[in-house]
């Protein structure tokens, strides 16, 4: 059974310029212990989706509709109190900015301790011991000293390790990582990803990885969901997606990844870009959301929105022209 089942998620924001449909009818699921990547460019609604899962969207101006079933319970039907018992305990989150995501005036130890004391009912002493254990687990040297330090005394990579320690302290069933490595040095990125995978195996958590870095996706995801303009446009197992992307947007994304060493090998081509930008989500969109930027778009695309269709084994895409089973150009 799926650990998380999201059905027709709609997160809209009331703005002076009209209603912003940041997430508009997205459905997906995550199995226990699975890693799902959500990819897309800035403003495609991937972060809003993750914040919606945790119900961290301020309401108003935001409004979340649809269903988010976690272990059989619809999170959108829970009281604030019940929801708080889930946050940081069953579902936890790692954010993009390790420099600003930790509280600067509280010790690292206190920030790890807190979740343990709220959710596991540990006393201060036991929580402190567990916090030191968590710091050891995430590979922070001298944990007994670090536990008493403040975030500004740690480097970016260290802080992200602390964030991971906070997130995993209560052995969550689902970890949502929103661009966890974007703000880090490349060498540190690899370390953090490896750490996340190690710990995921250890605690058996499922991961939703939100990123625009396709290299990271290839590295750790099992399944990928591609979002564009607040909608899901394609979803497939990771190998299948990289081998035969069906949606022109996904193809564009993959084409925009620089190939390491290609200029040395003499195979360098001009990096492909996707012309144009994400449409204004405050205006109703007629037809396919990607039509305005798609080289293959026809009148059909501009008038009728394509539904998600099965294009291969466990592979769906929303495009009129993505051929079933065929390998796209």
């Amino acid at each position: 059974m799926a650990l998380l089942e999201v059905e027709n998620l709609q997160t809209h924001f009331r703005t002076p310029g009209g209603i912003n449909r940041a997430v508009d009818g997205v459905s997906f699921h995550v199995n226990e212990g699975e890693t799902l990547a959500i990819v897309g460019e800035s403003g495609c609604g991937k972060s809003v989706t993750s914040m919606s899962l945790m119900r961290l969207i301020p309401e108003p101006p935001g409004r979340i509709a649809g269903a988010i079933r976690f272990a059989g319970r619809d999170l959108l039907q829970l009281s604030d109190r019940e929801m708080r018992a889930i946050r940081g305990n069953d579902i936890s989150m790692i954010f993009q900015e390790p420099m600003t995501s930790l509280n600067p005036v509280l010790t690292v130890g206190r920030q790890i301790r807190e979740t343990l004391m709220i959710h596991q009912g540990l006393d201060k002493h036991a929580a402190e011991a567990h916090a030191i254990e968590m710091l050891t687990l995430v590979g922070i040297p001298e944990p007994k000293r670090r536990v008493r330090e403040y975030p500004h005394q740690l480097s970016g990579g260290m802080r992200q390790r602390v964030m991971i320690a906070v997130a995993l302290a209560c052995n969550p069933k689902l970890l949502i990582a929103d661009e966890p490595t974007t703000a880090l040095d490349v060498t540190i990125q690899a370390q953090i990803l490896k750490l996340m995978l190690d710990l995921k195996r250890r605690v058996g958590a499922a991961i939703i990885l939100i990123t625009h870095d396709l290299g990271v996706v290839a590295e750790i995801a099992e399944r990928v969901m591609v979002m564009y303009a607040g909608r899901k446009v394609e979803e497939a197992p990771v190998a299948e997606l990289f081998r035969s992307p069906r949606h022109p947007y996904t193809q564009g994304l993959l084409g925009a990844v620089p190939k390491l060493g290609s200029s040395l090998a003499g195979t360098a081509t001009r990096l492909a870009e996707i012309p144009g930008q994400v449409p204004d989500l405050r205006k109703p969109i007629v037809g396919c959301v990607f039509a305005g930027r798609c080289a293959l778009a026809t009148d059909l695309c501009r008038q009728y929105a394509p539904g998600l269709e099965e294009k291969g084994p466990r592979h769906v895409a929303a495009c009129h022209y993505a051929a079933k089973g065929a390998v796209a150009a």
Partner: protein
Amino acid sequence: MLSYILRRIVATLPVMAIVALFVFSLLYIAPGDPAVVIAGDQASPEDVERIRQSLGLDRPFLVQFGSWVWRILHGDLGTSIFTNLPVSAMIGQRLGPTLSLMIVTLLLTIVVAVPLGVVAAWKAGSLIDRVIMGFAVFGFSLPVFVVGYMLAYIFALELEWLPVQGYTPLTQGFWPWLENLILPAVALGCVYIALVARITRAAMLEVLQQDYIRTAKAKGLGQGGILFIHALKNAAVPIVTVIGIGIALLIGGAVVTESVFAIPGLGRLTIDAILRRDYPVIQGIVLLFSFVYVLVNLMIDVVYTLVDPRIRY
């Protein structure tokens, strides 16, 4: 830390010296010949001359200043022209009520204003926020004596819940002491509460936008923990600053408040001294208030290091 405090204390010496120079000059800045002023209207020229010599006013300015400072450093603030009592003794007698009034007002302000500001920021834009900020504007605009007389009329004269005026020393019991201070503290605290509540709201609004507040929510913390631990501690620096600056407001307001509620404190002494042109007393009080203010600033800087670990000296 200790060395920092010591260095700060040393650094206050020049400030105090300038204050002392200014305070001493009061006698000369004031219109007229000090000796004539002190002697009064009916004095003969001989009287004036005698006073001039006894006070050393015939000596050069800097010599006078030097010997004045020398005496102050030995704890001698001079003698009142009016009562002939030592100024230090007069101030000592009046210190208790004023200190009591200030401490009660300070505590009242912190206990009332900070939570109000926090709630206003949390519910920013709501009715509660608008009501709190409305009261803040109101409290800020009303003069102390208006609030004072209003409170005395309602709670003392009409409802008879609290005494109209007067002061009871703490040595005669906690409640009698506090009872007499509640209305004056509310009157004096009005402006101060309004100011601190507004700053608290502004500081909290900024902090509540920060990423670490989102993290705290994602950890499953309750609203109370988020507001009063994660947010308030980050907003504390501007709040502490304004509480410290506000002590200057209290010093000014105490003078009026003590008159309204007939509290025999330094404020009353100040007014009396000014009306009588009792220069040594005025000088002593101004010097004391300046010293307190410098001390408060030092304390604020020390408190910074307690609330924000990034501030180290």
